[in-house]
């Protein structure tokens, strides 16, 4: 008893290792990025510095980081929720896009007072997003359709269906490019801190993060979601309606992604401008992986992703490096964090050593 060896639980070791793995994945990705950039760059040190701390260089860039983070909060939480239920529903991309389209439709209606108009656009985005993600879920529980395939197809249906609406009945021929009519002023989101690039979507995003985190970890329904995600048979035997949980979670997740599309469109633009996928849904998958489906961690991961995206934009302006470097970094990070056996041996050794020590102390007493 005189020597107090600190004994930690296995769970603590696992947490520690998931952090180490995350940091190591980021480090490996950065090393790769360094060498890749060196092949193109004339001044690799300067460019690599831009990648690392570029976004901190000016307050305008820091605003960009926050502004890029807002939609990621939504899609990150959306994917984390649906993945918690074990559903590989990748229709968040389509839900985001369709949400933006639906919001545009509502935002063009004249004569609705501001606060109500904004609520209506959010509602429209949420409902449309829920439909886009709900259909693959319903197809899965009713007809046993593989979700990943139907969700992919749903993404394209949402994309082309949305573009049809925007570019035919809603197209503004005087815009000079392919875009919708201008939104009504009453539908445009109020800005924050007098900065016209930060909008109340940030607050809504954080509300979504907090509420879904409470739902998932402090409410019976959240417990049901996680149980279904871990073991459907067990969930079934313990009286949870698996199908209902899957469909409800997908609807909720789609609603969040759809609201993300709404907020991103009405917060940053004066008309609908997308001509293709925005990639926010795919980014959401990366965030959910980084956070191991825990909504609480999404803001940090979203901040990180928004940060490196801003770095890439800065690099694009100050050097000859194509911003696609970010996709390479993202790919490496995802793959190494998702690699279950990466560092697993080391982790096991630590856990074994730790339990042996715990046993020894127990015997000593």
């Amino acid at each position, binding site marked *: 008893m005189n020597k107090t060896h600190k004994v930690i639980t296995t769970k603590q070791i696992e947490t520690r290792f998931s952090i180490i793995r995350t940091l190591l994945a980021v480090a490996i990705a950065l090393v790769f990025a360094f060498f*890749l950039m060196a*092949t*193109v760059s004339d001044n690799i040190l300067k460019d690599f510095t831009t990648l690392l701390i570029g976004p901190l260089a000016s307050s305008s860039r820091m605003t960009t980081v926050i502004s890029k983070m807002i939609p990621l909060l939504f899609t990150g939480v959306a994917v984390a929720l649906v993945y918690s239920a074990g559903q*590989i529903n*990748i229709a968040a991309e389509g839900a985001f896009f369709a949400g933006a389209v639906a919001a545009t439709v509502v935002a063009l209606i004249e004569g609705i007072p501001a606060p109500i108009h904004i609520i209506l656009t959010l509602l429209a985005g949420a409902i449309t997003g829920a439909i886009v993600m709900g*259909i693959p879920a319903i*197809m899965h529980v*009713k*007809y*046993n*359709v*593989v979700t*990943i*395939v*139907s969700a*992919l*197809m*749903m993404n*394209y*249906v949402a994309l*082309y*269906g949305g*573009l*049809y609406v925007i*570019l*035919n009945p809603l197209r503004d021929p005087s815009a000079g490019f392919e875009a919708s009519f201008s939104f009504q002023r009453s539908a445009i989101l109020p800005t924050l801190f007098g900065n016209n690039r930060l909008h109340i979507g940030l607050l809504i995003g954080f509300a979504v993060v907090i509420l879904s985190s409470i739902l998932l970890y402090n409410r019976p329904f959240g417990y049901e979601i996680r149980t279904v995600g871990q073991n459907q048979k067990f969930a079934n035997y313990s009286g949870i309606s698996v199908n209902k949980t899957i469909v409800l979670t997908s609807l909720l997740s789609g609603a969040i992604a759809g609201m993300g599309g709404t907020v991103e469109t009405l917060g940053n633009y004066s008309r609908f401008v997308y001509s293709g996928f925005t990639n926010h849904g*795919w980014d959401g*998958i*990366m965030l959910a*992986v980084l956070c191991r489906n825990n909504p609480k961690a999404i803001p940090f991961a979203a901040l990180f992703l928004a940060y490196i995206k801003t770095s890439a934009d800065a690099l694009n302006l100050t050097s000859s490096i*194509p911003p*696609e*470097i*970010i*996709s*390479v970094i*993202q*790919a*490496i990070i*995802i*793959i190494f964090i*998702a*690699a*279950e*056996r*990466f560092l*697993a041996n080391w982790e096991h050794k630590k856990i074994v050593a730790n339990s042996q020590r715990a046993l020894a102390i127990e015997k000593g007493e």
Partner: protein
Amino acid sequence: MLDYIFSLEFIFAVIRMGTPILFVGMAAVIGAKADILCIAYEGMMLFAALGGVIGSAYSQNLAVGAIVGLLAGLVIAAIFAYFVLYLDTKPLLTGLALNTLGTGGTVYVVYLLTGMKLDTSSLASLRFPTIHIPVIKDIPVIGSIISGHNLLSYVAFIMVIVVWYLVFKTRLGLRIRAVGEDPAAAASVGINVRRTKFIALLISGLIASMGGLFMSMGYMPYFTNNMTAGRGFIGIAAQNLGRGNPIITMIYTLIFGASMAIGNTAQSFRLPSQFASMMPYLITLIGLVVIGARNKKNERRLHESISRKSKV
């Protein structure tokens, strides 16, 4: 519009549009037989498409281009297989990561080589030739349907037979199906499960890479940013609709090819092009529901007949 559908031009367009999807469909059949959900075909195709262009442009030799392209695609397949089989990475996430790498990484390489970010039209890359089959081309109607396609389109159709033969008639195919259906049982009779799945994924990657080659060396004369545009996914959907049967999968890839062909010409028929572009995906969704409903009904019937018998 009906005139177009019954025209020779349309049949050519269907085959042209269907070729890359057919390759991916066959790749997905092998992946599905080994029970691996691989969505990385998009990434493999992009790297193969770029590799083919670079190889052929710098060597001015079609075979070298093809080999470089296939190797580029194979590298992606091997990375996928290694991470999924040896590092226990979730296949979906690995596929997602590699597709991201494909879209971003290829643009990077294009920029590195040409100084342009959009396409490789400045490189003098080669194309696969169009084949005019000697005797057949002179037969009226049939000759003009069968003859005159890109070399790789013929390879794609031959690939259907090759894949069918490989999966159902060879030792390797039997092993692939065994590890796919029940890895434990396969292992118990001495099959190396991981190695078999690895080989299956490499073969699958090779076939998908041919689809990539077709994109940049047949369908188009150069590589452009994200030129596969979801074809890797449509191929997977076709496999799904075909329930792993190469022949039925082929039929679905042609249906997709047809709806793409209609989509491409829709504007000349005053149909909104977005509507037409949406068709293949919508058809897939409906097809999945119809097939799912039928399977469910069959299953229920089976259950009923079993329970009836057990009562007696």
